[in-house]
């Protein structure tokens, strides 16, 4: 597996996770399902790759984790966006629109 490929995937996953958490704090399984539903099953990625991504985002300080009790009375680790994460999301989203817009234009030429 090429390194660039992984980076691209990882960067995209980060953006999606940040955007998802901007709606409300969620635990891991909720994030996985939220992504799957919102993307209309386009991203059927390995759920396992979500947890390292969450760990990485915690390390960067963009999200924070907290153990809370779910509606069904289970202990779950909830993730929430930090202020730095908000800023990051803004930057990443703008960047994404720039790139995807450019790619769109290239594809639509000719």
């Amino acid at each position, binding site marked *: 597996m090429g390194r660039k490929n992984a980076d691209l995937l990882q960067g995209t996953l980060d953006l999606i996770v940040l955007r998802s958490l901007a709606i409300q704090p969620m635990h891991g399984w909720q994030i996985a399902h939220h992504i799957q539903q919102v993307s209309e099953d386009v991203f059927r990625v390995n759920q396992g790759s979500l947890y390292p991504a969450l760990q990485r985002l915690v390390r960067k*300080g963009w999200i924070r984790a907290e153990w809370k009790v779910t509606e069904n009375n289970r*202990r779950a680790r909830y993730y929430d966006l930090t202020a730095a994460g908000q800023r990051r999301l803004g930057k990443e989203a703008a960047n994404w629109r720039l790139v995807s817009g450019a790619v769109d234009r290239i594809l639509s030429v000719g």
Partner: protein
Amino acid sequence: MSVWSEARERLSALLRRDDMEASLADEIRLHIELETEANLRTGMEPAAARREALRRLGGVERVKEEVRDARGIRPLEDLVSDVRFAVRSLGRTPGFAAAVVLTLALGIGANTAIFSVLNGVVLRPLDFPDPDRLVEICEEHESVAGFCVASFVNARDLGARSNAFERIGAGRGWPFILRGTEGAESVRGGLADAELFHVFGISTALGRTFTAADLGPDAAPVVILSNAMWQTRFGSDPDLLGGGITIDDQRATVVGVLPPGVKVPGLEAVQIWRPIPFDYADPANRGWRGFWTIGRLRPGLSIEEGVAELRTVAAALGEEYPDTNGGWGLRGMPLHDSVVGGSRRAINVFMGAVVFVLLIGCANVANLLMARSVRREREFAVRRSLGAGAGRLVRMLLVEGVLLAGVGAGLGLLLAAWGVRTFVALAPAGIPRVDEVSIDGAAILFTVGAAALATLLFGLLPAIRASRPDLVSSLRTGPERRGRMGLGTRAALVAGEVALGLVLLVGAGLLGRAFLDVAAWEPGFEREHLVTFWTLASDGKYETGQQVVAAFEQISAELRALPSVVATGTASAGPLFGGRETIAFRVAGSPVEPGRMPVARWYDQDPGFLPAMGIPLLEGRYFEAADDSAGAPVAIVNRTLAERFFPNGSAVGGRIDLERRGTVDVIGVVEDVKPFRPDAVPEPEIYWPIAQRTRFASFFVLRTTGDPAALERVVRTRVAAVAPDVSVSGYRTMEEAVGQELVSPRFNLVVLAIFAAVALCLAAIGIYGVIAYNVSRRTHEIGLRKALGADRGQIVAQVVGQGLKPALAGLAFGLAGSVALTRLMTGMLYGVKPTDPLTLITVAAGFALIASVACWIPARRAAALEPMEAMRVE
């Protein structure tokens, strides 16, 4: 996101590692449960639902591993586990770990300590501006052979006429009597000309230095005080400047105070400086070569160029003043050499010892690590075949090496700190600048670097070997085949260690022998119950020398009246006390030209001196009271002079011409005093009565019945009572004098003995290590031999024999090396030959014995092996 908060996050991740592991497990478990439940809701069978959940996650352990990686503390975690592993693995072989750490600690500690001292004493330049340009200047003549002296008048003329030297200054020690409210006290003073301080670039902290107008007998008396004197005696009183103090019963104005800690090299003890109060125009003063002279070269000139120019000036002075300067030459040497000169040989020997111990230490560490590594080759092959990368193995060994080197270096530095303090405390007063010694950073870096390098280099050897491709043969072959490799290298290392160790041991042995010789000094008179002290009559109180002699006689009578005093005497110098004064002479009537006359030492004495000392009279008579200024000039000579210059008859009745001191009748011959150094031969000596040639100072000797040290207070009060203007100082028993002479050889002996002991220990550890390893390597074979009927004695003999082979080779090389190297110590040995067979044989035999013991311990263990058990060992 700042670097800092990320680092903090990682650090807390590392610290909360166990928490995080539990939390990670919980999180994944919850995910699987929720996913399984979701699957159940779609109608799956429970088992299938769970399987599907696990499939979509992609494997619990893999996810966990990826999350751990994402924490970003992976390398640290690995390091922690490597260190844990290294500690465990070293803990399994505590003997090995202790031997390596001990070797490193001893090597690093001893070497750093000694190197720090060397650096402080020898290598560091003097604390003066441009110290390289300071040159010690000595007038040369056979009558002052071995001394560096010059006259202050010549020093002035040399300075004035030289272009190569910016300045030339002269000074000397000169005791003063300082009179204060508590009475008279003899203080260490010095005389300086107007240049001396400027030569060194010393300026005063308060006031001024001397000028030409302060010199000579007619100048108003002034003094400069050392800072210590100003502080302790005068309470740092700034008003003292311009005020007066009383020295030698004369008021003198304090014109300056030196800065704290500033001392003139060679005259460090001087507390009060006076300008030279003598007449520069007096021819006798031109011929009085009792001054120490230092010049400052102009920048860019070599010492050779400067001294060559001074020689031409000296030759010109010789023509202008033939009476005092004819036949006198001149030499110069860098001041730095002269200041450290006496200690230089000893220090070079110590430096050599440092290198030897360092080499032995490194060889030992290499040896131990190689033995261990060969033993572990199989372990590494297994690890490799189980998938450990070569990098991982290297890192493991590296961590082990760093751990060993780190602990060894830490202990070594503690040892060094302690060693430097001990060295400074033990050092003889003669070693210059020893009070400035402290632990040296460069030394630490050097020794720790060398030791760490050896540790890592040899520690990594097995990793390098393990990366070779023939894993299979490593796994398959028995331990005895594997161990063959490197055995020759290690035997050579042991031989080298033993050789180096033997050289050090021989050096220490020779010093020990020399020390015993010196300490056993039998001067020819009884050393016990004898005390000497120095008396000085104040300049102002006594008009003539005869008055001083009368005062000395009064003191003698007073002291002889003490019940515990058996006899008293005075002399200008004697065995282990006083200076060395020489005079050219000839047997009256012999055809020796004045310029080629032989030289003898001379002392003036009172009639009591020779009997009080107990120096036996061989012929004629001792001095008597009648040998005074009214009587005919007489002299007593020692056996050496009598035998050499009166070979055909008795010296008694003969006459001797003394250079510029007239002719004397020889009235007696006494036995030689055996010189303190066993390698010195007695010199010709001439004694004459102080009453016929007076002086203002003298040593007293007292022969007592009890302990002479206990008499000091009584002696001081009695002298003060009968002669208040005579000061007493330097009260010292002959045994104390001998003790002080022994300080330096004892110190040399102790230092080298420490090195030799360290070397011996290390070499023994080295031999033991090799043999113990050999035995463990051949356990199987030894078992077989025992099973075939070999008895214990045969096994022991064989193992010891094998171990002794490299040791004996090392001893042979070491003996050859000793003969070559200990010659450099000749000057420290007081006449003991560097090839002293007794020392060489004793030391080599002792070393062989210790080597045998080092071999015998593992050999005995080998012999005790049960054959069946031994053969089962794989």
